[in-house]
């Protein structure tokens, strides 16, 4: 075995045999996901809510029995209405352009989208049958959606948090306990290169992160939770790797400045937990005050979460990850340099 593979193996075995670490980096976040998934499972509106902007003939002549399945609200502000659709406050916005019935809907919740389309479609057909055949045409338009069904929203968020926790704690704990237990000192006596030690840590952390991802997606896509992955979800793997690097660097700094594992875990928590709250892990930031969104912009976890949401559930293309990827990598480089500055082999 090479130095790299044997050190990686030693780290991985140390991690896998540490039941507490295993629990907190893998099972704990997974539990969160499942709890949230169960709590918010039924969070789709029972009645289909449609926002009507301007006059729409087919709605104005809606039969009484239709009133039971849809609820129509009238509005004059198209832009605000479209924003409501994006956020998921209403299921769709309907308006009329000459003979075209334009239906703006969000694809975030595919079940709701399907329901609202088929309902409106049936109204159009009915109007056509009742009056002049082929008079009205339905023109469905998908809005770029911001609203996400609970599981769609939580999976990338909690996964991001799990990865951040795993990488930060992995790096901080290795560094501190290896320093405290004099293992670093012992390694320093061997001809192993520092880059090999670091690479082993990076490799193991990325491995753990990918394992977390597989587990999360495996659980979340179970029919019970119903996560639906968008087509370019795989691009999130790049984000996950970049995110792992960023949080490894954070962990190395936490590990470099603390003398004991307890201290390191405290600092790591202090860095990651607020990020989870401010960075959109547990609730969407769309309605958060401006200052919070501004703070979130500086946090690597927000970018990891945001990027993963874009490709995993919002259906954006692969290239959409580039800005977030760049930010995460840039963050990693800067913080790693700081970690290198603070690094010590020995605590005496």
């Amino acid at each position, binding site marked *: 075995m090479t130095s790299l593979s044997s*050190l990686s193996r030693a780290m991985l*075995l*140390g991690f896998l045999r540490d039941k507490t670490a295993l629990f907190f980096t893998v099972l704990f976040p997974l539990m969160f996901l499942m709890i949230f998934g169960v709590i918010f499972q039924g969070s789709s509106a029972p009645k289909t809510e449609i926002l009507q902007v301007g006059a729409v003939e087919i709605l104005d002549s809606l039969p009484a029995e239709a009133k039971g399945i849809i609820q129509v609200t009238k509005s004059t502000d198209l832009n605000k209405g479209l924003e409501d659709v994006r956020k998921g406050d209403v299921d769709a916005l309907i308006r009329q352009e000459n003979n075209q019935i334009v239906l703006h809907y969000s694809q975030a919740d595919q079940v709701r989208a399907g329901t609202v389309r088929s309902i409106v479609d049936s109204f159009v057909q009915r109007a056509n049958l009742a009056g002049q055949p082929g008079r009205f045409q339905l023109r469905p338009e998908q809005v770029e959606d911001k609203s996400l069904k609970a599981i769609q929203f939580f999976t990338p968020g909690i996964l991001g948090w799990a990865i951040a926790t795993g990488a930060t704690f992995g790096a901080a704990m290795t560094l501190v306990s290896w320093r405290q237990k004099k293992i670093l000192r*012992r390694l*320093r006596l061997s001809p192993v290169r520092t880059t090999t030690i670091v690479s082993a840590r990076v490799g193991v952390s990325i491995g753990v992160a990918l394992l977390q991802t597989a587990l999360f997606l495996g659980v979340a896509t179970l029919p019970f939770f119903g996560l639906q992955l968008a087509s370019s979800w795989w691009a999130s793997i790049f984000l996950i790797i970049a995110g792992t690097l960023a949080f490894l660097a954070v962990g190395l700094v936490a590990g470099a400045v603390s003398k004991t594992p307890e201290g390191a875990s405290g600092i790591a928590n202090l860095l990651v937990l607020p990020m989870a709250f401010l960075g959109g892990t547990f609730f969407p930031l769309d309605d958060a005050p401006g200052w919070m969104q501004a703070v979130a912009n500086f946090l690597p976890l927000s970018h990891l979460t945001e990027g993963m949401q874009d490709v995993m559930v919002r259906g954006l293309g692969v290239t959409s990850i580039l800005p977030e990827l760049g930010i995460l990598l840039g963050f990693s480089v800067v913080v790693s340099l700081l970690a290198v500055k603070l690094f010590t082999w020995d605590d005496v």
Partner: protein
Amino acid sequence: MGKAIVVQDLKKRYGDVQAVDGVSFEVESGEFFGILGPNGAGKTTTLEILEGLRQADSGSAEIFGLSPWPRNPRLLPRIGVQLQASAFFERLTAREQIRTFASLYGVSPAKADEMLEVVGLADKANTPAEKLSGGQAQRLSIAIALAHGPELVFLDEPTAALDPQARRNLWDLLREINAAGRTVVLTTHYMDEAESLCDRVAVMDHGKILKLGSPAVLVRGLDSPTHISVELGVISLAAAKELAGPGDEVAEDGISLTIATRKPAVILSELAERGALAGLQVRGATLEDVFLDLTGREYRA
């Protein structure tokens, strides 16, 4: 043969403790060298500077003509180190430990397992390092230091936690590797260990080398009395005092009666004649005495 170690006027200070205070010595290739001294003498600090773990404040240290500081990857494969405090990976078994360390030197797992056997830990191969006894951990640490066949071995109190059997076994092992041409530097508190193993010893205290030479010469050069003890009551204090020569000391401590004498042969034959040999113990000069002689105070190991 060349010099394995050359140390000149080495100094190292921690805060207001002058841990190493102007140490100079040389170790020949193939030599077995010992550093003796009480707790806090500066033995570990001296070794750590030689191993490249610490930077000296001043003075110079060379290993095979190379400086160990800053960390010198060309030197590292040639030396093997057993640290005073053992260091192992967390939650790995004895076998996994030695194999991991061995691989860092490009040593095969088979060779690593062999070393485990040599130090008598084959039956503990699957035990996590955390669960090894103090002496077993010490032996594992020594095995790790030796696995890559280093030319120069540093052992910091290798026998400190060992039972008498393991201690003898380790002595044999160390003699063997020394006989195979490897240089060994060890620290110890035990004169018998130094006497039995070392070609030369340096006696250290307060960061200074007080004396340097072969152990036999150190002890022989010492004009210290031999302590002869017998059971209390086999001879009266008065009779013992009569027996003792001028300058000899007689003392009782509630268990035995001790005569400190420079003519042990005379006293012993007198005691034998009187049939007063019950519980006889004869103790020659030891490190304690060398130390007492050098510093004028008790050895406080």
